[in-house]
């Protein structure tokens, strides 16, 4: 497996009352191609800041960041923006859809920006909307979509350029269980296609699909665990033990 993302000694400080607060405090992290990693930890532990740093939305105060083998922490704003468009997909709670564009136009926009033909972009955009169960909303403006539909459109937009890394912050926050299932299936395919996924979530169903769980506390990664596959049925369903009981 090849390494898609690597962070070394990443630090991000915010001004505090006295000393600056270290929101991200020396994070070392490697994510392989096809790997899904879930970041957990109490609110304020630095999860979201870490995601922002990894996607170049914020700049680290110290440390190194490599994406797809290239060092990116020193890139200028402009070059970061270009690199990001092609290689990083964001799925964040605030959707940032363009209000004046229809759902499908929003989705295809990042593809057009990197020079994909209109036809190919539209084809791929519709395919993604289809997979996420919102194809019939393709022609609507964001204002005429429900919260959950907007979110799915934002997911489709994040995936259209088949980025190396998908960074997701609460990707299923507004979604019912069916739409969550659609997104989880799509994320599963990312992995098979060799894309890496890093997500911050409180949704246990989403977290449990990750290959690896990182636990953060006070800006640092304090534990890394592989979830691994298991299929043992015995003892899985608590109520069943009671079935044996006699009254």
């Amino acid at each position, binding site marked *: 497996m090849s390494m898609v993302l690597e962070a070394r000694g990443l630090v991000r400080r915010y001004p505090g009352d006295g000393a600056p607060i270290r929101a991200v405090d020396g994070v070392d992290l490697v994510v392989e191609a096809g790997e899904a990693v879930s970041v*957990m930890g*109490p*609110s*304020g532990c630095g999860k979201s800041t870490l995601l922002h740093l990894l996607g170049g939305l914020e700049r680290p105060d110290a440390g190194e960041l490599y994406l797809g083998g290239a060092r990116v922490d020193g890139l200028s704003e402009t070059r970061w923006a270009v690199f990001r468009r092609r290689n990083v997909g964001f799925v964040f709670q605030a959707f940032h859809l363009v209000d004046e564009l229809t759902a499908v136009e929003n989705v295809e926009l990042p593809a057009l920006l990197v020079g994909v033909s209109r036809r190919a972009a539209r084809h791929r955009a519709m395919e993604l909307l289809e997979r996420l169960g919102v194809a019939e909303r393709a022609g609507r403006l964001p204002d005429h979509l429900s919260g959950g539909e907007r979110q799915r459109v934002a997911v489709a937009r994040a995936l259209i350029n088949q980025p190396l890394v998908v960074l997701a912050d609460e990707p299923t926050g507004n979604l019912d269980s069916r739409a969550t299932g659609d997104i989880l299936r799509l994320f599963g395919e990312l992995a098979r296609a060799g894309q890496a996924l890093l997500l911050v979530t*409180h949704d*246990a*169903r989403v*977290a*449990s*699909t990750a290959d690896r*769980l990182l*636990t953060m*506390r006070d800006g640092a990664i304090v*534990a890394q*665990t592989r*979830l*691994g*596959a*298991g*299929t*043992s*049925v*015995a*003892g*899985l*369903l*608590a*109520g*069943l*033990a*009671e*079935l*044996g*009981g*006699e*009254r």
Partner: protein
Amino acid sequence: MSMRDVVLSLLAKEPAHGYELRQRLAQALGPAGGALNPGQVYVTLSRLERAGLVEAREVAQPSQPDKKVYELTAAGLERVMDWFNDLTWSKVAPLEFHLKLVAAAATRLTDPVALVDSQRLELLRELRQLQELALRESPDSDGALLLEGASLRLQADIRWLEVCQQRIVEREAR
């Protein structure tokens, strides 16, 4: 819940022999049925017979040994109706973990935050297994419905663990 009620309720549809009841139970439970001891249905049937809740009758089979077909008695049917009307719900208040956490905070023999982390990991593993099982089930089956119930309960427990952790972190910050 007792196995007796379950077997009686399975038999309430129509008279059946033990093997048919086992199949009905397996169908209702889906993958969860894997944890069940196959002999349990037969043992329960003979206990129910002794208790006068079912009656057995031998049915001759041309090429195989006679089989026993069981039928509910009036008392058996009454017990099934009692079961439907009984509102007992299996309690899953996570009492034991709660007490562990209180003890950890008081004694500092272990870090309460880490305790929550390991427990959450364990539950996430279980949830992952449930989801994998659910993927293999037809979504309309009775088994899938039971898995969904188990999964929702686990998710609630995991959410509670997060609340625990947030509380501890806030206390430590004070």
